[in-house]
């Protein structure tokens, strides 16, 4: 990073970029969540040209399952997030791992109305957490117990029990219940994520044998924002 870049960061003009992976089973609401977090507009695929306006109307009801991934960006008060919104369909889940190494945090979305597939979600989560690129890293994991608006949906406590989240010892994690369509609960999650990422950096700085995740630039950001 050049001197000028360091300077802008130090001055708080440019926010530190973090890569976040958004995972979870298909239909759990990942794309809807990321869409809500994005600035300004509500469309699926970024700003729409006029030609596409009428399509987008049908789209909000009839959201398209992601194939592969989408990259979206949004900012919180002191971080700039680049989110890899992955496809949750079973045949694409094995593609997640290509993006583990370079990610700094994970958002894991659960459809809290889908009791039937809760075990599947747990299995995928376990596989994820045991993956060699994830296992030994202190990566924050944010869980959204999504679709809390559904009548038959389970509480976030219930979800965390079913997923045995209390067993996660080596990573900071947090679960919020959310309603992605209305946007409820999303901000709480993002605030936690930002705080934890910054805190992990501070901890890393103080821990003698822990490895640096973000290096100098972020430390500066932290000091500025504190």
């Amino acid at each position, binding site marked *: 990073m050049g001197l000028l870049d360091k300077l802008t960061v130090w001055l708080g003009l440019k926010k530190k*970029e973090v890569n976040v992976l958004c995972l979870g089973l298909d239909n759990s609401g990942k794309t809807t969540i990321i869409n809500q977090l994005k600035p300004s507009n509500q469309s699926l695929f*970024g700003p*729409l040209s006029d030609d596409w306006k009428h*399509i987008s109307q049908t789209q909000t009801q009839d959201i*398209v399952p992601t194939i*592969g991934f989408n990259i979206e960006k949004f900012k919180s008060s002191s971080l700039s997030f680049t989110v890899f919104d992955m496809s949750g369909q079973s045949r694409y889940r094995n593609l997640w791992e290509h993006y583990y190494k*370079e990610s700094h945090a994970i958002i894991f979305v659960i459809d809290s109305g889908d009791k039937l597939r809760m075990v599947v979600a747990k299995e995928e989560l376990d596989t994820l957490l045991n993956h060699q690129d994830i296992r030994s890293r202190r990566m924050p994991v944010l869980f959204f117990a999504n679709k809390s608006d559904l009548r038959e949906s389970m509480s976030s406590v219930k979800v965390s029990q079913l997923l045995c989240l209390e067993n996660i010892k080596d990573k900071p994690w947090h679960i919020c219940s959310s309603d992605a369509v209305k946007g409820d609960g999303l901000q709480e999650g993002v605030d936690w994520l930002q705080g934890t990422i910054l805190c992990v950096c501070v901890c890393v700085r103080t821990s003698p044998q822990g490895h640096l995740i973000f290096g100098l630039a972020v430390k500066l950001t932290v000091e500025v924002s504190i």
Partner: protein
Amino acid sequence: MIKKFDKKDEESGSGSNPFQHLEKSAVLQEARIFNETPINPRRCLHILTKIIYLLNQGEHFGTTEATEAFFAMTRLFQSNDQTLRRMCYLTIKEMANISEDVIIVTSSLTKDMTGKEDVYRGPAIRALCRITDTTMLQAIERYMKQAIVDKVPSVSSSALVSSLHMVRMSYDVVKRWVNEAQEAASSDNIMVQYHALGLLYHLRKNDRLAVSKMLNKFTKSGLKSPFAYCMLIRIASKLLEETEGGHDSPLFDFIESCLRNKHEMVVYEAASAIVHMPNCTARELAPAVSVLQLFCSSPKAALRYAAVRTLNKVAMKHPSAVTACNLDLENLITDSNRSIATLAITTLLKTGSESSVDRLMKQISSFVSEISDEFKVVVVQAISALCQKYPRKHSVMMNFLSNMLRDDVSCGGFEYKRAIVDCIISIIEENPDSKETGLAHLCEFIEDCEHTVLATKILHLLGKEGPRTPSPSKYIRFIFNRVVLESEAVRAAAVSALAKFGAQNDDLLPSVLVLMQRCMMDSDDEVRDRATFYMNVLQQKQKALNAAYVFNGLSVSVPGLEKSLHQYTLEPTEKPFDMKSVPLANTPITEQKTEFAPVATSKLPEKPGPTRQDIYQEQLAGIPEFQGLGPLFKSSEAVQLTEAETEYVVRCVKHTFARHMVFQFDCTNTLNDQLLQKVMVQMEPSEAYDVLHYVPAANLPYSQPGSCYSLVSLPEDDPTAVSCTFSCTLKYLVKDCDPNTGEPDDDGYDDEYVLEDLEVTVADHIQKVLKPNFAAAWDEVGDDFEKEETFALASVRTLEEAVGNIISFLGMQPCERSDKVPENKNSHILFLAGVFRGGHDVLVRSRLALADGVTMQVTVRSSDKTVVDIILASVG
């Protein structure tokens, strides 16, 4: 390091290519920076360029490394750098087939294709369609439909062209986009309109009616795009060609009207379409030719080139029409563009008079060394055509050709050399006077010829023709030089050629034997074997032996021989191997071809694969009823026993064995509401032929061909009864069925259908065999059973007709090119060779004289008396 491109770079100046010494592993190592945050677009761009460069140089990427690089590249989608993004699209397309899981970018591309940035949209569509398969296509279908009618031309064009590519893969899905394509076809943008028309045509091209409706519509409403017009012209002329009708159709009128279009492109396309049409009348041709004539004097080189190239192509077909342009063509002879000049000269050579030949040849000699191989081939082809037209000019041509051969020893590719050699060979064959000069030129050529195929071809020709020239000894040196200097294949061919000189010329025999002796010490097995074999044959000094083993080789099918020998080794027996048990090659090796095959499509000689007959042999052997019939002797061409468009279509192939015939009936049921079962053809012979067995086809569903067979024994007691007429009836059980599901009723009823009569003729009992040296074969068979008779062919008007009739009636192979009757002759001798069922050689010499009809004196020789009688009886 990539060595293979060094040469090119040396030529184009030093080190101008920054990618010259790229190493794949280093580049892939660098590609790791794709994973870094933040992204450095400039560096990433450079690395992607390197990857694409390597891919385009043919560098092989393993699946694992390709996939790793691909996934790293996908991270670059987070950058909004436009150039980088577009480079990603290119990379996706390049890697679509070598990386795994490329569908990972589907959503990202869909997002770009529907997004705000127009520069992304078109390329994203193209990339998306490359990574999409049929199942995935459904998911992006609505975006494609929308993109086709997008108001941004680049987006619409991209979608249309991508759809066209996907027609092959997912016709049924793309078919649903017709309405959108239709809308795009009325676009104001010329490219969009053109691409839309292309897609519409490809969606409908298998439905003639739909195509002609579409043509009708567009020719009426008119189009804006000249590209689209060109395409319409092509479609229209294809349709015209298929209808085979006259040219007084609206389609022709349309093409004709395009000659007056304001775009040169369209005018040229129309003219080219007209002059390429089969059966064009002079009146129809005239306006097209005058347009081309006009182009000949255009200031635009591209137009001149197009015009002269087209005229060159049709010069042989419509010489008189092209002659009208001679003056304009003369002006192009000195065109500064050598390609145009070459085409002009070769066109004039095709159409010009005999007197202008020398002048034109001189002109072309002045710059022949400056033109590319491709155009040199054009020149050679023109010369070849010229030789056929003006045989007296052969010495000029021959000289020119030999100069071309000589000047281009070091340069000039295989196709070019092959064209010259073929041309010389055809001149030799057409003009006996030119034989010695031609052979001398070829001898000189093989002294320094790196093409094995050409060297062996010429050696074969020398062996065939050399011994029959007045001074055969002068060729020996050239041939023997090959034995000393060349590769195995050429050495072996040289040995075979030498042997022919020894066999034909008694005074050369001692020296040939000495040379053979030397060849027997060759380091190569094949060369040694051949030498030893010929040595032993030649030492016998027997004409018959020479004829059978030196001049005229084996006429059996090679795969058949292999199989028979293998079988023989599996079943040990005291009896010697019987050559007669081997099926004959049913397509005799033709004599040196003189026609010019289009150069590009010519192939190097292939290893003999199984022939049609070998395939039949295997199929028939799989049917238990036909066990023990012995080897298949001959299979006829298929004979139609029904009209082309009837309820049931039946064709018959006649298979001849030593004492039996098997008739194979290939039947097709064209009624979609019927299922036929137990299908067989009942046969009633007119002679003492016995139908031994019927093998029915169990099921004959709609449009799926099936075969049934009849086994017939040939009359033992009357071997001369070679012809017979069978009346045939198709018998079967009909089950009506649902046309949609094909589900048949439970019950059926018997029915029958009368077919046309089937003839067995003498030709079914004779297999063609080529005897390269007929005289030697004639001596070999000898006159033990010779018979001669004279016939009058009253209804025949010309010698050609007589020759054609005899050949097709007897089904024998014409030898020594005697099927070609020289012009203006009133007598001719036809030599025919074959093998009769049972393995007896049969030769026919037929002297024909033209006088008020044709008189024919037929002499037949065979190793079997009955065969001679059969042939004469059947002719009479």
